[in-house]
């Protein structure tokens, strides 16, 4: 049975199992918590994902596994880069080009999913699209609890399809890095599937055309935005970037090459939560 997760409900079931000395297994993943025992087999949903998200993921997985992918070393993955200096920076205007449906595009271009599925994924709302693809790298934390209520083991199970997701990350970062080369000194920073650059307006429009053409040659569609009131504040372990996108205030923290932040970025990729 599936239910919406509620901490008090989950805790009550844990209490019941402990009181009645019934051992159980608790599996925690990004979107679900599962309690399995002789008494219950319940899925608690972290957020309510429409069935079409799970349907999309099931199709993505079925198609991907038909074609092998090289093992990807996560430590080699690059999610961001920047040219920030230790001092703060302010610019009235900077420019941003983001890849659209980057992960799905890589899966399609590299022959892991067919055109029909690619088009279906693109019709999903952005967050659902990201969730469906992100499930390829799903990770489960499995806890075994004994009859005395003691956690006796914890195993982490990485999805067998994780390398397909990380292959996408690698290909996107290679493409973004190449785009950064094209931008030269104008390049400010990149973040996952987007580049940010600083130039005068006329040069920026020209640069944007070149970058958009470059991305198109690689099979990617993209969007172009002007960001205003861009500010970089140098903190101890990261650069805090603030800007306006239209009427919306945005903030992002770009690490100062601290590799322990990779885990948080991975979560961001999977959940898109700040």
């Amino acid at each position, binding site marked *: 049975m599936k*239910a*919406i997760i509620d901490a008090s*409900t989950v805790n009550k079931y844990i209490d019941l199992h402990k009181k*009645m000395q019934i051992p159980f297994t608790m599996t925690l993943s990004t979107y679900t918590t599962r309690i399995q025992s002789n008494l219950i087999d319940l899925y608690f949903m972290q957020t*309510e994902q429409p069935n079409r998200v799970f349907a999309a993921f099931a199709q993505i997985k079925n198609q991907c596994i038909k074609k092998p992918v090289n093992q990807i070393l996560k430590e080699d993955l690059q999610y961001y880069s920047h040219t920030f200096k230790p001092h703060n920076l302010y610019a009235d205007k900077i420019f941003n080009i983001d890849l659209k449906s980057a992960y799905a595009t890589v899966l399609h271009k590299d022959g892991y999913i067919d055109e029909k599925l690619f088009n279906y994924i693109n019709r999903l709302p952005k967050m659902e699209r990201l969730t469906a693809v992100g499930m390829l790298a799903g990770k489960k934390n499995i806890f075994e609890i004994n009859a005395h209520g003691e956690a006796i083991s914890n195993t982490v199970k990485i999805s067998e399809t994780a390398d397909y997701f990380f292959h996408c990350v690698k290909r996107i970062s290679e493409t973004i890095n190449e785009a950064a080369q094209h931008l030269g000194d104008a390049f400010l920073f990149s973040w996952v599937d987007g580049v940010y650059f600083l130039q005068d307006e006329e040069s920026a429009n020209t640069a944007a055309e070149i970058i958009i053409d470059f991305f198109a040659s690689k099979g990617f569609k993209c969007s172009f935005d002007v960001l205003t009131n861009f500010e970089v504040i140098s903190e101890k372990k990261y650069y805090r970037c603030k800007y306006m996108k239209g009427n919306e205030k945005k903030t992002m923290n770009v690490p100062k090459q601290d590799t322990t932040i990779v885990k948080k970025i991975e979560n961001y990729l999977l959940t898109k939560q700040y």
Partner: protein
Amino acid sequence: MSALFFIKILTNCKNMAKKYPPGYVKNPKKVAAGKARAEKGIKDSTGKYVSKTFENELARTLLANKGIDVSKVKPDQDEKIKKLLDDAGVTKKEIKQMYLNAPDFFDDLKKTLKLTGTMKDGNQVEKVIDEYKGKFLIIDTPEGTPRPVSKTEIKLELIKFKQFLSGKINVVDFGLSPILSVFEGTATYHIPNVELLLQELKSSLNVSTDKQLKKKDGTEVMEAINNILKEWGFSEYIVIYVS
């Protein structure tokens, strides 16, 4: 209170007691058997016999404690539970004792162990309601007090709500999440009272006729409904999709 009220109460009691014809002599063996059954019954802390659902949940819990997998057995599967108990040699006495060892714990579970089911769309809700064997409660006003209803009554409320959605506003679909009380064996649905909802919707959108309401932009209507449902405390349990 009037004397007529007391007379009515007395008459009702007499009617209830009038089970047997005059002069009927009860079979002592049957009486003894009935008393023995009643003694085995589980009473809660208020002295009332617990429901079958509650008893079955206790049975499932005890069976699980004894290492028997009942995770796929539902509390309304009386025959199956009885067979499992017989096969495991578990008696009703043991179930009763388990409850009596921790009555506050189980009574608390009865009151508070609730699951919010995942959202089901219009047609699926009807199927789920049809298949559900427990009791139904409905919350249809902003005050939010659940009231018991029969399966037929809740289906009627659902139909009225669907008619409202398709007749008055341009609805694509809607979804409902029930609150399931595990040990109590109830399902509570939030289905708005359509007259009240219509009134508030018209007021919110500044219209006075159904015709004017139907002409309103779908996005504006959806926002107005969402705000009303949020104010009523319904928004976690009901979602409406307008065109």
